[in-house]
C-alpha cells in the first residue's frame, strides 16, 4: 500500500491535534507516514504511533527554521523522493500553505488548500465565497499536496509501528534567501492560539466599548476558548489586530464558534464559516449571523453572555 505523508506540527514537545486529524484522514488514502522536520522526532514518536503512523521520517533540522519556508519545502521534497507517496497532507496554516505550494511546484504536483474533507480517491471538499459555495476539487497532475483545515476530521487512535527513518538532507544555498534574524513572541497569556483553537469566542461592535470586552474574555475562559474579534472592534482600537477573525484577519475553523454582538457581514463570515457549530448572540433578529448559526439567541448580550458564562462555570462544578 502506498504511503501518505503527513507533515507533523508540534508545540512544546507535543504533537498538535491537527496532526492527529491528518493521520486519521490519511488512513483512507494510504499508509500514514509522519514527517518530522527538525525538533525531536523521538519525543513525538509514541503519539505518532498511537494515531496510526506506520513510519516516521525524521529530517534533522538545524537550518530548517533559520530561513523562511523554502528549506522545509525542500526537505519535504526529499522525503517525497524517498517515499514516493500517494499524497502529502499538511494542516492549513499560513506558513504550511506556503510550504505546500512550494513543495507542489518542486515535485510537479497539484496543490489544494483549506480542504474540509478529503475522500479516499483524493477529492478535496472546499468551502468558498464565504461559505456560499462548496467545491469538490482534485489534483490531476503528479502527487497531490493538500492542506486541511483544523477540526475537519475527528482524530481516532489506531496504533501502528511508527518505524523511525532518518532522512539525510542538507538545505541548499538557494533555499536560504530569506533569513530569519529574530523571532519575537508578542502573544501574552495562557489562552489557546486563535488560528487552530477548538473553541473560539468572538466579540463584535455590539459590545459597545473597550472596557466591556471582558464579557467576551470571561466567556472564553469559562469555555477554555481562544478570543477573537470582528473587524469593527479591531478598527475601533479595542483589541489587538492579531485577534481579528475575518477575511483579512485570522481564519478559524473550530469545533465551536460563539459570536457575541457580531452582525455577521460576509467579510467576517469568510473567516469562520467552516466552524462545526456556530452559536450567536445579537439583539438584532435580522443580523446575517443568524443565517449561519446553528443556535442563536436574539437578546441583549450584556445579560445573555454573562448568564451563559455563569451556567457553564456552574456545570464545570
Amino acid at each position: 500500500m502506498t504511503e501518505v505523508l503527513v507533515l507533523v506540527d508540534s508545540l512544546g514537545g507535543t504533537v498538535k491535534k491537527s496532526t492527529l486529524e491528518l493521520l486519521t484522514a490519511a488512513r483512507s488514502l494510504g499508509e500514514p507516514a509522519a514527517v518530522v522536520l527538525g525538533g525531536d522526532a523521538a519525543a513525538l514518536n509514541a503519539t505518532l504511533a498511537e494515531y496510526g503512523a506506520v513510519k516516521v521520517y525524521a529530517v534533522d533540522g538545524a537550518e530548517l527554521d533559520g530561513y523562511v519556508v523554502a528549506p522545509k519545502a525542500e526537505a519535504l521534497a526529499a522525503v517525497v523522493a524517498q517515499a514516493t507517496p500517494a499524497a502529502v497532507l499538511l494542516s492549513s496554516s499560513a506558513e504550511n500553505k506556503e510550504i505546500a505550494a512550494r513543495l507542489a511546484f518542486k515535485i510537479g504536483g497539484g496543490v489544494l488548500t483549506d480542504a474540509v474533507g478529503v475522500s479516499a480517491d483524493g477529492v478535496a471538499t472546499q468551502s468558498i465565497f464565504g461559505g456560499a459555495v462548496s467545491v469538490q476539487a482534485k489534483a490531476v497532475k503528479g502527487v497531490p499536496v493538500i492542506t486541511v483545515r483544523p477540526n475537519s476530521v475527528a482524530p481516532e487512535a489506531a496504533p501502528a509501528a511508527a518505524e523511525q527513518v532518518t532522512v539525510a538532507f542538507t538545505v541548499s544555498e538557494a533555499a536560504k534567501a530569506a533569513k530569519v534574524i529574530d523571532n519575537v513572541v508578542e502573544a501574552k497569556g495562557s489562552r489557546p492560539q486563535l488560528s487552530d483553537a477548538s473553541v473560539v469566542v468572538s466579540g463584535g461592535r455590539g459590545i459597545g466599548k473597550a472596557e466591556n470586552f471582558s464579557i467576551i474574555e470571561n466567556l472564553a475562559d469559562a469555555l477554555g476558548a481562544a478570543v477573537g474579534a470582528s473587524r469593527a472592534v479591531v478598527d475601533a482600537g479595542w483589541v489587538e489586530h492579531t485577534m481579528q477573525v475575518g477575511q483579512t484577519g485570522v481564519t478559524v475553523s473550530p469545533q465551536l464558534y460563539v459570536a457575541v454582538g457580531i452582525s455577521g457581514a460576509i467579510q467576517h463570515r469568510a473567516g469562520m464559516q467552516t466552524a462545526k457549530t456556530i452559536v450567536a448572540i445579537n439583539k438584532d433578529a435580522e443580523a446575517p449571523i443568524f443565517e449561519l448559526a446553528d443556535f442563536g439567541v436574539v437578546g441583549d448580550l450584556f445579560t445573555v453572555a454573562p448568564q451563559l458564562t455563569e451556567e457553564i462555570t456552574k456545570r464545570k462544578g
Partner: protein
Amino acid sequence: MNIVVLVKQVPDTEGDRKLNPADNTLDREAVDPVINYIDEFAIEEGLRLKEAHGGEVTILTVGPERATESIRKALSMGADKAVHVTDAALHGSDAIQTATIIAKALGTIEWDVAVAGSEATDSRMSVVPALVAEALGAPQLSQARKVTVDGSKVTIERVTDTGYAVVEGQTPAVISVVEKINDPRYPSFKGIMAAKSKPIQTLSLADLGVDAGECGLANAWTQVESFENAPPRAAGQVVKDDGDGGTKIVEYLASKKLV
C-alpha cells in the same frame, strides 16, 4: 528603486459570487470586479518605498481585458506605469500556472522588489507570492506587516502565530503584505486624471515566450470536479431571550456535548 506591485482584479466580496457551471471556473460576469482588497495595501507600500528611495512603481497584472479598470485605479493612486498580461489561453489557470506567468513577466521588467497582497479574496489560497519566489529563486519575504529597505537589503516583520519574525533578504525580493502594514491613500482627482494617460503595456503569452500548453484550464494541475451552492447550514434554531437566553445556549451546547 524599481518597484513592481502585483495587482489582481477579483469579484467584489460583497456581491453574490458564483462559479460558472459551463466549466467550473470563476463567473466574472456575475459580480462587478474590483482591485483585490489587500493589493491596495501593496500599492500603498510600493508608493511609500518610492517616496523613500526614489524610482518607479510598475503595476503588474495577469488577468482578462477588463482588468485594465483595476490597473487604472492603481495608477490613479500614484503608480507610474503598468504591464498587463492578458491572453484568452490563460482562462482557468491555477495558482502554480499563474505564478509561473508572473515570474516570466517579471523577467521583462527591471525590478528590485515585487510587492503583492498576501491573499486574494476570491481564491483565498495565499500562495502565489511564495510560488513566485520559488519560480525565481528569490527571497520569500511574505506576510509582512512592516518593510524596510537599506540598499540591496530588504528587511520585513513577518507575521507569525505568536508575534512576528524579523526576516532579511537581498534584492530582487518578493514581498507580500498584510492589512496591518499601512493605510492606503485615496486617489486624488489629479491622480485619477493623470492615470488616464499613464502607459499600460499589454503582453500576450507569445510576447512572454510561453506556450499556451503550459496554461489554462485544460492544463491546470488541479481541477474543480463539481460544485454546489452550499445548502444553508441545517436549519438553525433561533430563540428570543426571555431572561433565559444564556441557559438555553448551555442546554444546546450540552446536547451537542460541547460543554
